[in-house]
Structures are given as structure tokens and as C-alpha cells.
């Protein structure tokens, strides 16, 4: 006890927050930049000077001084710990970002990824000394093929968008091999798609033909047939789609696409809803990336690293990029060169996101066939529970029907309140929640896309639902102040994003005012 018999009493505290000398507000601390904390002539790492030696740098030795601050270890730890406290995280609360899949990150997976036999292995070690690493690649590949019912998998793509690029390159290679490279130059993309889909198609020289989603939020066979033509190379379709709906006509779409001589690329960002329930290979998919950081819970890390292996049908398998792993006799070997193969080339140096493979495999082994299926079911159950509990206070764009792992609302219910989706999202921050995905998908006005995942307890979901209902009631009662000033209980109030874009300041310079 350090209060010496004088416990604090709430009523003696001032009602209004006071300005403080430091700018800190108790545990909510301001933190300067490393360039303002560290000294430019100091270091926090003890390194012995080498014995005198004859330099071999010749005329190439650096001439100008490097200017980087060094922090003593306690300074560094304090700096980063203070910064970390200004971040929301899945470990601290529900993170219902639709399409992003913020589920629990098991710490076992972190521990496994740090085993020296995985973390401390060089990508170019003699293959005879890296058999364990290749075994991980093989085991994860096999698991992905079982779950998807596909024929081959390219493991090297570094993230979801990189996987899209990989799949589309395989498609382009297959089309060129058929001698149709000059004629098939169009990719069909629904207007509900992730922005990465059209960007990927454009990157390899394809033009994009948009297809509209129907009134019910899904793409119809008719809409696809209407857009199909001899110039179409592929369709890129997300399933379950970005509205949180299973594309009911997917088999018919796949048939129509194949009849027209085109390929079916499936954006697998939402694969987590259907693992153990259906297999993309049975639905007619030719290629699909799997975001290991979504479905298999490798940590998002504040924006990466991700991992985006691509499963492929037998029609595309010959064109898959190098490297890949092959078992010969008892040993595993790496195929690293395209010579003598139809492979379209290489996506990146080395062999892909090994550290993420270990985490994903550890997640898969922990869950097993039963746990993976249960996880899909719980994710879908939780999303529908949120949907059923909020339906009457918010508005669903496609009517009262079940969703998959995420539930989509629009902003019609905010009409006449003078409030926007953004206001609603910012008010959630004051309640201690990370907002849902907002303004995506683009086809729904003021979209709010909520993905609770399988990681939330019922109590957590119930409190979240009650909070959103309370906010909705306040919005409809036109208590605008609670929304338009929000957030007030966060490390920062709303930011001037226009200024950031108009006068970009992208690095620290000495002349800047502190």
C-alpha cells in the first residue's frame, strides 16, 4: 500500500480531463520519434572493434557519414513498448474486419516457427542439410491439396495478391501454350471484387471487363455468359464473395467459363468459411490462392508478412512456377529451374514464406480434420448470430438470408440521421472495439462488413451485439455528438488525412517542428 491510508475517491477528481505537462494522459503516453530520443553518436549494441586488417573495399568505401540514431537497450524497449500501447490488437479484443479474418493467433505456432531447425536454416543450404524444411513444404502442400481437392500447389507466393498474380500468370502461360495469347486478352471481374483482382489482371497486360452482381449479391450464370466472348482469358471470382455470400451458381459459372475456353481463377480470401464443407476443386476452379494469414491464422503483424500459396487444377499444373519440392526415393529435392519445363517462371527469390508455412501447418495439425470443419462452422455460426441480432436495427442489402463467415450491412438505416458509416465506425472505437470493414465492397452503399471469426466466445459476441444495438439506437435518436466527435477515448482523435496527402511528409527531417 503506498497510499498510506488515504485511498483516492472518485468524487474528488475533476470531472474534465486536465491538460498535462507531458501531454501524457496517465497510461496513455506520448512518444517521440527515435530520431528525437536517440543520439546519433551512440549505439545500443556492444560490438568489439576488429583487429587491424587490410581493407578490401578499395575505392568503393563509403565516403559520406551515415546519420542514424542509436538507442541504449532500455531506451529502445521503452520506445517500442510505449508505441505498441497505441495499437488495437486481436489479443485485446474482437477485431471484426470483414474480409481480413482476424482470428486468434496461437502462440504454439510462434514457438514452432522459432525452432532452429526452421528459423535458422538458409534457403540455399545443400538440400541434404535442409530436409526438415522441405518436409514442412511437402506436408503443408499435401494438407492444402486435401482441403481444396486440387491437383498441384505453388508455394512460393508471398501474400494473397502475389498469389493472384501467380495464378493469373499460370493461366496466361496456359493460354499462350494454346496459341491464343494474342486473342484472349480480357479478364472478367465482378464489381464486388477486391481491388487486387483488377490490379493483378492489369499488371500482366490484361484488360478488365466488369460484370455486375445481381440484386441478391451474387453473380449469375447469365451475367457471366453475357460477358463471355472469344477474347476472354479468365474470370476472377471470389467465393465466398465479398458480400459474405456463397456464389450459388458457381458450378454453372465454371462450366460456362470452361465451355468458352477460359479459365476460372477463384480468389480464396474467404476460404476460411468453407474448409471441410466443400472443395474448390469440385466446384470447377482452375486456380485459387489461399491466404495463410487469414484461413490458417499466421499473424497479420500490423500489415504482413502474409503468404499466398496457389492451388491449381491439372490443366494449369504444368505451368506452375519454380521452385517446387519433389520426393525421389526417400529424399526430398528442390526443382529450382524452368529449363525443360513449361513452368512460367519464378515469383520470388528462394522458396516462399517458410516461417508462415510452419505456423500454418502447426495450426492445421492442432485443428485436424474435425477442428478445421468446426472452425468453419463456428465462423459461419457467429456471423449469422451477429446478423440475426442486428438485422432489425441495421439494414442488410440483400434481405434476410443466411450469410457465410461475414455479414454485410449498408447505410440505408442511417438515412435521415445525418450520420455516416464512418461516424458509426469511429464511435465503435470509443466503445473499445476495432471497427468492421467499412465502404467495402464498393457495390453496397456505406458498406459495413463484419467478420467475427470462430475465435469469439458467446459472451464476447453478446457484448459486441449489445454495443452495436446501443449505438444504433443512439444514432436513430440523432445523438450526433457521440458519433461526429468520435473517437474521444483513443490515443488520437480523427486525423487530417487531406493534409497528409496534399503535403506529404514521409520521413523525419531535422528542420521539422517537434
Amino acid at each position, binding site marked *: 500500500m503506498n497510499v498510506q491510508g488515504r485511498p483516492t475517491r472518485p468524487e474528488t477528481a475533476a470531472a474534465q480531463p486536465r491538460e498535462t505537462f507531458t501531454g501524457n494522459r496517465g497510461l496513455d503516453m506520448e512518444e517521440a520519434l527515435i530520431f528525437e530520443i536517440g543520439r546519433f553518436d551512440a549505439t545500443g549494441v556492444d560490438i568489439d572493434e576488429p583487429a587491424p586488417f587490410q581493407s578490401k573495399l578499395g575505392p568503393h568505401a563509403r565516403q559520406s557519414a551515415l546519420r542514424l540514431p542509436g538507442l541504449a537497450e532500455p531506451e529502445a524497449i521503452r520506445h517500442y513498448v510505449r508505441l505498441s500501447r497505441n495499437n488495437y490488437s486481436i489479443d485485446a479484443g474482437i477485431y471484426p474486419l470483414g474480409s481480413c479474418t482476424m482470428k486468434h493467433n496461437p502462440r504454439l505456432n510462434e514457438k514452432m516457427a*522459432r525452432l532452429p531447425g526452421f528459423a535458422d536454416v538458409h534457403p540455399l543450404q545443400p538440400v541434404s542439410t535442409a530436409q526438415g524444411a522441405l518436409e514442412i513444404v511437402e506436408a503443408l502442400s499435401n494438407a492444402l491439396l486435401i482441403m481444396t481437392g486440387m491437383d498441384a500447389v505453388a508455394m512460393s507466393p508471398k501474400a494473397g495478391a502475389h498469389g493472384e498474380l501467380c495464378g493469373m500468370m499460370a493461366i496466361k502461360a496456359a493460354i499462350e501454350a494454346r496459341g491464343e495469347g494474342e486473342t484472349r486478352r480480357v479478364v472478367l471481374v465482378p464489381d464486388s471484387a477486391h481491388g487486387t483482382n483488377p490490379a493483378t489482371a492489369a499488371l500482366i497486360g490484361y484488360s478488365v471487363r466488369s460484370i455486375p452482381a445481381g440484386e441478391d449479391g451474387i453473380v449469375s450464370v447469365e451475367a457471366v455468359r453475357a460477358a463471355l466472348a472469344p477474347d476472354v482469358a479468365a474470370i476472377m471470382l471470389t467465393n465466398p464473395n465479398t458480400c459474405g455470400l456463397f456464389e450459388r451458381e458457381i458450378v454453372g459459372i465454371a462450366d460456362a467459363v470452361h465451355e468458352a475456353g477460359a479459365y476460372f481463377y477463384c480468389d480464396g480470401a474467404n476460404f476460411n468459411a468453407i474448409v471441410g464443407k466443400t472443395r474448390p476443386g469440385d466446384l470447377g476452379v482452375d486456380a485459387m490462392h489461399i491466404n495463410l494469414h487469414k484461413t490458417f491464422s499466421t499473424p497479420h503483424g500490423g500489415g504482413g508478412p502474409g503468404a499466398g500459396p496457389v492451388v491449381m487444377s491439372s490443366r494449369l499444373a504444368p505451368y506452375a512456377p519454380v521452385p517446387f519440392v519433389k520426393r525421389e526415393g526417400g529424399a526430398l529435392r528442390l526443382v529450382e529451374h524452368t529449363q525443360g519445363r513449361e513452368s512460367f517462371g519464378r515469383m520470388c527469390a528462394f522458396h516462399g514464406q517458410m516461417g508462415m508455412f510452419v505456423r500454418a501447418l502447426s495450426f492445421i495439425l492442432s485443428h485436424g480434420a474435425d477442428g478445421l470443419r468446426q472452425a468453419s462452422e463456428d465462423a459461419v455460426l457467429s456471423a449469422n448470430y451477429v446478423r440475426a441480432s442486428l438485422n432489425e436495427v441495421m439494414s442488410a442489402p440483400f434481405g434476410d438470408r443466411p450469410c457465410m463467415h461475414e455479414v454485410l450491412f449498408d447505410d440505408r438505416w442511417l438515412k435521415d440521421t445525418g450520420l455516416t458509416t464512418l461516424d458509426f465506425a469511429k464511435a465503435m472505437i470509443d466503445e473499445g472495439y476495432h471497427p468492421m470493414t467499412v465502404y467495402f465492397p464498393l457495390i453496397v452503399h456505406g458498406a459495413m462488413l463484419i467478420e467475427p471469426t470462430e475465435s469469439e466466445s458467446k459472451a464476447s459476441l453478446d457484448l459486441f451485439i449489445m454495443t452495436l444495438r446501443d449505438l444504433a439506437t443512439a444514432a436513430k435518436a440523432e445523438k450526433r455528438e457521440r458519433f461526429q466527435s468520435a473517437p474521444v477515448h483513443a490515443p488520437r482523435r480523427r486525423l487530417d488525412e487531406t493534409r497528409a496527402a496534399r503535403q506529404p511528409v514521409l520521413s523525419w527531417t531535422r528542420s521539422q517542428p517537434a
Partner: protein
Amino acid sequence: MRYLPLDASEREAMLTRIGVQDIEALFADIPADKRIEDLLDMPLGKSEMAVERAMTAIAGRSVAAGSVPFFLGAGAYRRHIPATVDHLIQRSEFLTSYTPYQPEIAQGTLQVLFEFQTQVAALTGMEVANASMYDGSTACGEAMLMAHRLTRRNGAVISGGLHPQYADVCATLAHMAGDRIARLAPDLKASEGIAAAIDAETSCVIVQSPDFFGNPRDLTPIAEAAHAHGALLIAVFTDPVALAAVRSPGEMSADIAVGEGQGLGNALNFGGPYVGLFATRAKNVRQMPGRLAGETVDAEGRRSFVLTLSTREQHIRREKATSNICTNSGLCALAFSIHLSLLGAVGLERLAKVNHANAVELADRLSAIPSVEVINTHFFNEFVMRTPRPAAELTEALAGRGVIGGLPVSRLLPGAGLDDCIIVASTETNTDDDRAAYARALADWLR
């Protein structure tokens, strides 16, 4: 299942609230004949202990670099990483947060990215850097595409000293996009004539320094030749520590500097995840790929950070975006940034000096063995050694003797006539005993 909080009675209650009989009703949109009941061939879930046992057994079937004298680089470098780095990146708030789309509750990540960008700009001698790319090789490919946009041309000249897998990534992109590429022959001694390969359609010249074979290169004349033709110089590096020893891309008039950042803060990880560094001149920023953190103020006038210039990016511009990239390599960038903020310029320069000293010592020791030749006149921490027998056999034989001795050039450049060459690297982690063991094993094998 230990990761799933719901129990059977709660699931029942939730189904009731939803108003359906059973969970299958929620999957009714999946065509009935396409539903599966089970993942055949996949085992059931395992306890934490059982998974740990299985994974540890697999890990035991690789040789960990730290368990042997280790001299392999070629784009990935084994470094001693202060314990602070791995502790801090495992903070929940860094590890389990998403891309900072809600800046009011993501200032930690955003300030880290702003600091990271400033560090990368300083290290490369450039004006602006982005918030990271997947790795060095994909950063290199993106730099080529950016040069095409800036110059409105579509031809790239690729130095024979560029890491072969980086060159393969560029070649794949170029082939797929229908762009031109001129790839020069492998260049052991940095003597290639790049200027002659530049023409009016060339958008960029891509040169690595220190190059794949360890040679530091003077990029200034190459920059001049490129600029004279209206083309850009893309300077590539594969070890960020080298930039503390050799002249920076900025000093040598590069227009874009890209490289691998793994060598600071990040483990070898059998090739990933790593962190791509990407920097350029301020005037080019709007054609840059990837995320950017910028400074601004909040409603109370407090300094704050936010993702900015996102009108370049795919989620806004879709098919007109500068790149399809969405994810960066946030946590690896954090590890890089923490390691570098501990080191500071003083520590980084000393670290570079130790790397260089160790490599010089190693080169002296190995070249003293009869019939062993070190090719490089100049090098930082990596050089090419030539022996009378095939290098691929050498590295296997060395591995059999408990030494990881380097990369046979033929593994990445088969058929280039360099089968007797091995690329040897040394970092601060090597001891005198390691070098003695290498020399002993090599002499023994050549005997």
C-alpha cells in the same frame, strides 16, 4: 478444440436465435452434391504437446546454421540479432494487429513505419522510402515496373551481376507483361559493358552492388550512361549492412534503390518471410508501389501518422493502380527497424567493419591453400573462390565434414561455365575456430 470457445449448448442457443434447425441450414447455398462430410486422409486434431513433438521431430531433420561453421550468403545472411528484437516484435499489439486502416488506434504501427521509412531513406541515401515490400527480389521487379511508368518505356537492361533469382523474377514479370528485357551474361569480375546495352527504349538499368559475386561496383558511370539515354538506374543490394561499408545508391546517382532487408533483425527462415526495402527520389513518389506512412495532425493538433497517397493503390485505383500489392512485410520491417535503432550509425558501421574483417581474414586463409583462388579484387563480406574441382561436389563434401561452405554458383547459374566457383560469405557470427575448421575441411578434401 482448445482454440474454439463455443460449446455445444451455446451453439444450440445461437442457432435458435438465428432461427434455423441446424448448422447445415447455414451452408444451404453450397450445391448439395458438392458438399463434403469430412476431410478424408487428414488426421484429427492434436494436443499442443503432440503438435510440438511432431514439429520438433521435423525441425531436427535440418542442419541449423548456428550449429556448424557457416559461410553461406548469396542474398540471405546469418546475423546475431539482439534478444530485444524478437521480444518486442512478439508484443501482442504489434504481432496481432492489422494494417493500420483506423489510424486513431494504430499509431504504434504507423509511427514505426514512419521511422522505418526514414531509416531506409538514410541508409540508401535516397529521399523517400515506402513501408516495405515482400522481399528484395519482388521489390526489384516492382522497381522495374515503376521505371517503365516513369519513362513510359518498356525495356530493362539487367546486369550480369544481379542475383540470378532476382533477374528471374524480373524476366518473368517482363515476359508476362509483354515488356522487353536484355539480360547480360553472368559477370564474375564486374567487367561487363552495360552502357552499350542501353538504347532509346530502355527504361532502366538494374545493377547490384555489392553484386551477386561480391564485387562492390561504381554505379556512377552507369547512372550517367542511363541518364544520357533518358533511362533510370535501379541500384540493388542484398545485405543492408553492406550499405554502411560501401558507397550508397544515393551517392552514386541511383533513381531507385531496392534491396533485401533480412540481414537486419530477421532470421534466415529458409528464405522467408523477409522484408523488401524500396527507396527513390521525392519527385517519383507518386509512381511508387506499396504503402506509405505520412505525418499529419489530429483534431487536437497533435502530431500523428497515417497511411497516405493511397490513391496510388489497388483498393482505390483498382486496375489503374501502381501495383497490385496489398500486404507489406510489417512485422519484418519492425524487426529491421528495432535492430537498426539499437545499432545506430555507430553500431552499424562497426558491424559492417567486423563483417568485412572476418571476410578478409577468411579469404586470406582459404587462398593460402594450394590451388585455391579468390577471384575478387575488392569485396565486402562475400567473394568468389575457385577450386580445381566442381563446387557442387565441394559444398556437399564440406557439409559431410560439418561445414556449410558457401553456394556453388552452378546451383543458381547452371550451364554458365562457372561450375568451379563457389560464393563464400562471412558475417560477425563467424569465429576464428569456424575459419580454421573451413580451411581444414577444404584442404582435406582437395588433398
